[in-house]
């Protein structure tokens, strides 16, 4: 596994002192999950659902940690309430690393409906989003982690299907 983009993303988050990770899996995130499983410098505990993962991140945040959840954008539909009434209400910085299923390249038709809604939902919820189309966009991730701490709330790193599908 070379996966230079996956390595760059995880390295950037670690350099920015993100120390607690959870995930609900996705093929496009699989290399990052493998990296986290093998990494003894950070805590990584898989979640069963995206809202459980946000709860775990909130708890870690109460211990002063900056946290990250890896998930598909389709999971956004599961966590609107947890985002609004927990993460945003208590103003907790959380980095949400989302694979953008339902973007061009996606082979599964059922991913398209949530894919169409994801950017609008994030805008409606006033959640800052870094939409990564190509490799150079990944260089902005560090500043979004900083912004999560400044704004004291969630930020989303949205990773295009084509970008991550090619990262092997």
């Amino acid at each position, binding site marked *: 596994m070379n996966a230079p983009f996956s390595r760059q993303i995880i390295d950037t988050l670690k350099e920015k002192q993100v120390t607690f990770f959870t995930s609900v899996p996705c093929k496009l995130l699989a290399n990052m999950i493998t990296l986290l499983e093998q990494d003894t410098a950070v805590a990584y505990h898989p979640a*069963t659902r995206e809202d*459980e993962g946000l709860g*775990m991140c909130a708890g870690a945040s109460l*211990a002063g940690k900056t*946290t990250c959840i890896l998930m598909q954008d389709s999971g956004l539909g599961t966590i609107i309430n947890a985002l609004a009434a*927990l993460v945003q209400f208590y103003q907790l910085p959380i980095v949400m690393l989302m694979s953008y299923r339902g973007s061009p390249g996606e082979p599964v038709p059922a991913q398209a409906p949530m894919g169409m809604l994801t950017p609008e939902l994030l805008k409606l919820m006033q959640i800052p989003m870094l939409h990564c189309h190509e490799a150079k966009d990944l260089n902005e991730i560090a500043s979004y982690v900083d912004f999560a701490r400044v704004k004291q709330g969630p930020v989303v790193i949205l990773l295009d299907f084509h970008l991550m599908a090619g990262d092997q």
Partner: protein
Amino acid sequence: MKRYALLKTLVPVMRDSLVVCNIGIPSQELFAIEDRDNHFYMLGSMGLCTSIALGLSLNTTKKVIALEGDGSMLMNLSTLATIGNRGPNNLFAVIIDNGSYGSTGDQASYTSAATSLAGIARAAGCERVIECNGDAAAKHLEEALNEGQSTLIVAKVESGNEPVPVVPLHPVVLRERFRACVSH
């Protein structure tokens, strides 16, 4: 015994721990009995109490207690699988099981009939699960805290609520005073 009376017996046992309390009337009753900085009152996001406590317990050496309810536990059963596999020994949970959705008008929950939360927790991999009447819960919790072994207590009580006001504190105030307890 109802939830309010059970909470009164738990408060003295929980003073040296970090407490994550379930949304709605449970938090309001706990606040009315004794408001403390080591209490994190959930004001929203029903179902996530034990998951918040899990994330906290994985990031502190202090003892963490989730004050959970049967309805909210039923909403997020799969977190029991995460606890069964990844829960650390400083995580404790008291599921106050009154077989009803107390904050929304005491509608019956499935634990009042065929469903056993203790059975589900055991099957999910939680090693130490105790089911007891509410009046024995404080003793079991105190023993578990002293032994330092992660324990999930399903405490059976009657349905019913105390007439108490909503928690009047701002969420960021709650966050900050709780964080100070975690870091001290």
